[in-house]
C-alpha cells in the first residue's frame, strides 16, 4: 500500500509495473466491468461475423446471373426512413440508459417503449422491402448477388428482432425487480448490443444500398 500511496493511480492504471501487481493486486475487477468487457468481446466477434457476410457480398455483388441488380431493386426513400428509425432508436436507448442510472422507472419505460416502436417500424419496413423483392421474382434463390444480399441484410434484421425481444424482457425485469445491480448489468449489455446494431446498419446502408443503387 505504501508505494501506491506515494504514486498517483493514473501513472500506472493497469498495474503493468512488474512485481507490484503480484504482491498487492486488489483482486478481480468489479462484476460490472467483467460482464461489460465479456459482452464487448462477444460484440466484436459478432462484428467479425458480419465482416464475413460483407466480404461475400462485396465479392458477389456483380454476379446477378441475368437477374435484377441493386440499382433496379433498391428504394432509397424506404432505406432513408429505416435509417432514421434505427438512428433515433439508438438515441432513445441512450435516454433509457440515463434514466436507468438515475433510477426513474417511468422515464425508463417510456424511452424503452419508444426504442421498441422505432425498432418495430424498422423491421416492418425491411419486411415489406423483402416481400416486395420476392414478389418481383428477386428472391434469395434468383442470383448469387441476391443470396448474399438477403444473408447480410437478413442477418442484421434477425439481430434487431432478437434485440427487440431482449428489450421487452428488460422492460419487464425492471418493472418487476427494479434497478438492481444485476439488472443494471443486463441493461449495460443491452445498450451495447443496440448501439452496435446501429453501427452495423451504417455499414449496411452505405455499402449495400448507397453504393449499390447509384454509381
Amino acid at each position, binding site marked *: 500500500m505504501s508505494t501506491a*500511496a506515494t504514486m498517483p493511480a493514473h501513472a500506472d492504471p493497469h498495474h503493468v509495473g512488474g512485481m507490484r501487481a503480484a504482491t498487492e493486486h486488489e483482486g478481480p*475487477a468489479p462484476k460490472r466491468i467483467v460482464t461489460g468487457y465479456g459482452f464487448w468481446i462477444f460484440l466484436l466477434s459478432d462484428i467479425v461475423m458480419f465482416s464475413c457476410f460483407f466480404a461475400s457480398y462485396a465479392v458477389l455483388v456483380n454476379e446477378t446471373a441475368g437477374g435484377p441488380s441493386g440499382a433496379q431493386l433498391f428504394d*432509397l426513400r424506404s432505406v432513408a426512413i429505416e435509417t432514421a428509425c434505427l438512428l433515433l432508436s*439508438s*438515441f432513445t436507448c441512450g435516454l433509457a440508459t*440515463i434514466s436507468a442510472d438515475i433510477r426513474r422507472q417511468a422515464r425508463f419505460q417510456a424511452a424503452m417503449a419508444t426504442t421498441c416502436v422505432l425498432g418495430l417500424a424498422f423491421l416492418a419496413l425491411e419486411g415489406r422491402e423483402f416481400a416486395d423483392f420476392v414478389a418481383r421474382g428477386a428472391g434469395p434463390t434468383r442470383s448469387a448477388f441476391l443470396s448474399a444480399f438477403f444473408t447480410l441484410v437478413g442477418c442484421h434484421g434477425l439481430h434487431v428482432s432478437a434485440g427487440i425481444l431482449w428489450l421487452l424482457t428488460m422492460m419487464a425485469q425492471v418493472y418487476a425487480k427494479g434497478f438492481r445491480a444485476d439488472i443494471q448489468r443486463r441493461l449495460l449489455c443491452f445498450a451495447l448490443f443496440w448501439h452496435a446494431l446501429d453501427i452495423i446498419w451504417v455499414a449496411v446502408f452505405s455499402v449495400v444500398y448507397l453504393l449499390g443503387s447509384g454509381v
Partner: protein
Amino acid sequence: MSDHVHDVEKPVDVAPGDEGEGDVRLRLLGYLIGLGLAVLLTATSFFIAGTDLVWQPSIPVAIIVLAIAQMGVHLVFFLHITTGPDNANNVMALAFGLLIVVLVIGGSLWIMANLNHNMMPMDQLMQMQR
C-alpha cells in the same frame, strides 16, 4: 472499488459503454451531439449518392469515408469508447476486432479479384472439358 486511502482517481478500468457518474444534462447533451453529427453524416451520404454536383468517381470513396466517420461518432458518443487510460482494454479489444475485419474483407476482395483476373473465361473452360 479501490482500497487505497490516497487514491482519489477514478477506478482503473471502465466497462465498455459506461460513461461514469456525471451531470444528467451533460450526458444528455453528449447523446444529442452524437445524434446531430450522425444525422448530418447520414444526410450527407444520402445526398451525395443521388447528386450529380460532384465528380462521379469520387462518390464511392466519399460514401465509405462518411460511413467510417459515422461509425466513429457512434463509438464515441453512444458507446463511450474513449482514448483515456481507463478505456485501454476496451480500445485494445476493438483494435484487434478491426484488424480481423480488415483482414477478412480486404483479403477476400484481393484474393477473389486476383482469381477472377487469372481465370480463363468460362466458355473456353467449358470447351477444354469436352
